[in-house]
């Protein structure tokens, strides 16, 4: 820096710079903490669930448009399998509450239960990841 620039800099330090108010840093960090709270975090397991579901839909769609016969051949088996998964996952509860039209009710209830379980598992897993400061 030239000599004249240095003179200007020294004078500017007196005339231009002023101190930030007391407690400034604390206020900023509090505001930063507030912004973090406002963030909506998408649970990782839900993302994986959606990813898997989406992949299955795409796979089925691909098979349908390339080889319908193959799809129809295994359709009944696939339908029975998924239906069984959802129904059996809520089987105990549905018996306890004596659902009317039990099969249909337990099917949808099964979907909800699986999602709730995945969310709970994700919350536990996230807590573990945060404590280990992994932020995967």
């Amino acid at each position, binding site marked *: *820096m030239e000599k*004249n*620039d240095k*003179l*200007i*800099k020294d*004078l*500017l*330090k*007196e*005339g*231009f*710079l*002023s*101190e*930030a*108010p007391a407690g*400034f*840093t604390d*206020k*900023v*960090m509090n*505001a*930063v*903490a507030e*912004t*973090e709270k406002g963030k909506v975090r998408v649970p990782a397991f839900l993302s994986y669930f959606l990813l898997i579901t989406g992949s299955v839909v795409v796979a089925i769609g691909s098979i349908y448009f390339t080889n319908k016969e193959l799809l129809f051949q295994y359709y009944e088996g696939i339908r029975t399998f998924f239906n069984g998964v959802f129904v059996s996952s809520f089987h105990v509860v549905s018996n306890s509450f004596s659902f009317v039209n039990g099969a249909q009710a337990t099917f949808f209830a099964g979907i909800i239960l699986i999602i709730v379980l995945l969310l709970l598992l994700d919350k536990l897993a996230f807590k573990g990841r945060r404590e280990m*400061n992994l*932020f995967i």
Partner: protein
Amino acid sequence: MKEADEMIITRVLNGERDAYAVLVDRYKDRVFSLVRGIVKERHVAEEVAQDVFVKAYISLKKFRKESGFSTWLYRIAYNTAVSQTRKKKYLYRSFDEELEMTDSYDAEPGKEVEESRQKLLTRALLELSAEDKLILMLYYFEEKPVEEISRSTALSVSNVKVKLFRIRKKLKIIMERLGKTVPVIY
């Protein structure tokens, strides 16, 4: 030894939110000074300056290390402060009002000449535009090269040099106009 800005940013991005306080402490005075030079009102400047650091934190992932962190931060400060003056024009005091406020400044005995120079310099600085103040901050306090200032302000290198020349000339003229008996700086 002071930890480099980039290392602190890496720590913040890795989840150490509290490390950001180091950056805030490091730059709070300069950011506040730059913002205050633009918005004038102290309490508004405090809010805007806080806003600047919050915005910088939120956008930290987008920070590219082509320029220094300070350059990037001052750019955010400049944009935020200028937006504020556009939103609330009534807060932008006139030059005469600012002069009246500086008149209440009392010099200590024995330091009258030096304090007088400071007061006049403060007055001179009030006349500079917001963009000039940003360039002042980057060139004189951060000692950034003209090329980096050019990238940060989206002005050409020659444009920045011309502005620096004009700032120096303006400071000299204003100080001579306001106080002829004050020793000329250069």
